[in-house]
């Protein structure tokens, strides 16, 4: 019985191996026809292809903080930014932010007075700024930890939608960026948004300061 089954399996193995032996034979024949390097190189020499190098010039970030809207109190602001780094020094930033403002002191004291409808109390701004990173360096946390940092100034133009009105807005400010890795960074930012407002009667230029903390990723 034992020998029978062994014979069956031996036959099976033989059937499997014979074609392979043939294949190997033909491979050997090909070898003799075309001489090859004894040890083929592991990696084929490759030209450097610029297109294959991952370029990380964009930076996408979210930020939150406090924005003081003149006459309308200081409130939580949330925003997003998309930076495109033109060079090691310059970048362009598209920024968008949103905040909900409070009642003015006049409205609070005046009892039943309301200057704005609820929807008009929301402030939305966008801007396009040019930034200049002019103090690059390193920050040290203890003995073993150092992070790359940048101090930058930026200025730009945009629009602010507030109180049922859109106004041309100039913005300027500065920021401190700490890079935790090559592609994750934190921003501490201070910006001033300047726009004209005629909510309280005559046209006046308002200064609206914003202090924020953001997180950004390079891609």
């Amino acid at each position, binding site marked *: 019985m034992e020998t029978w*089954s062994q014979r069956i399996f031996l036959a099976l193995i033989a059937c499997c191996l014979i074609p392979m032996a043939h294949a190997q034979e033909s491979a050997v024949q090909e070898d003799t026809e075309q001489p090859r390097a004894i040890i083929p190189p592991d990696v084929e020499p490759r*030209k*450097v292809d610029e297109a294959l190098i991952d370029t990380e010039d964009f930076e996408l970030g979210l930020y939150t903080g406090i924005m003081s809207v003149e006459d309308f109190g200081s409130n939580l602001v949330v925003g997003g930014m998309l930076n495109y780094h033109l060079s090691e020094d310059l970048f362009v930033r598209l920024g968008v932010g949103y905040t909900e403002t409070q009642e003015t002191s006049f409205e609070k004291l005046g009892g039943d007075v309301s200057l704005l409808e609820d929807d008009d109390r929301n402030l939305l701004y966008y801007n396009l700024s040019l930034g200049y990173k002019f103090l690059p360096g390193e920050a040290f946390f203890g003995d073993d930890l150092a992070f790359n940092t940048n101090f930058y100034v930026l200025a730009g133009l945009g*629009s602010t939608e507030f109180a049922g009105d859109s106004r041309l807005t100039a913005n300027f400010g500065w920021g401190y960026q700490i890079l935790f890795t090559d592609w994750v960074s934190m921003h501490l930012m201070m910006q001033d948004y300047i726009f004209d407002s005629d*909510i309280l009667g005559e046209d006046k230029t308002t200064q609206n300061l914003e202090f924020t903390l953001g997180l950004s990723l390079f891609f």
Partner: protein
Amino acid sequence: MEGLATVFPCKQFVFLVVALCLVLPTGQASAEERGNWWQFWSAEDERSQRVKILEPFLEIHTGPGRGFPVFYVAEQDEWITLEKRRTDWFKVTLENGESGWAKRNAMEKTMDAVGEIVRFTDPRVDDFTSRRWEAGVLTGDFDGASVNSLYMGYLMTANLSTELGVSQVLGDFSQNVLANINLVHQPFPHWTLSPFFTLGTGMVWIKPKSTLVREESRQEQSAHVGLGLRYYLADRYFLRVEYKDYVVFTDRDNNEEAKEWKLGLSVFF
């Protein structure tokens, strides 16, 4: 019991045969053709860009900028791997595992595995004339009010391109949003300072200020003609200045006209 003992060696045979049949063909395949499905997982390896330092040394900075300190110096003949690029800086990894940033002009003093000096291409004036896509932002004056615009253009022939643009006009009495489609003709596209003519149509959404008299928002059709100049700056950037004359078709007795001046920065792809 004896039966079982006889069955077990058989089972071992079966496993052996099955294992052989499975292993052998894959062994053959892997020897014959590298770059199978399993290489998908080592794609990093496949794409790795290695270069050899030709200069006596190569400075490695901690970050992609001249202000970041040099923390390591790689030697001549060392092989380095290019990981990624940010503006004109390259992140490189050395064979000993050290990793940092090297400036582009230092990278151009290296040699790749084929033996060629590494060169990186720059978008140049040639690309400026042969580009296909462009986009830009402009700001200026629309009949006394400030205007901010964003546009994107596609070059159909060397002279003719089509553009889609959105503008926001921030006026004292109303705020308007304009959406335009233009046909742009450049008679001399190869000039660094190249004039262009534009003709287009679009929609205007006019929303009077809510702090003023309550007036209904309205939507009108508009047409415009214009001319402008584009000036190639450097890299992939160019300046654009344009003047447009708008006619807004209203259902009142007179059509409204507006003049627009804008200056902006554009990039081409």
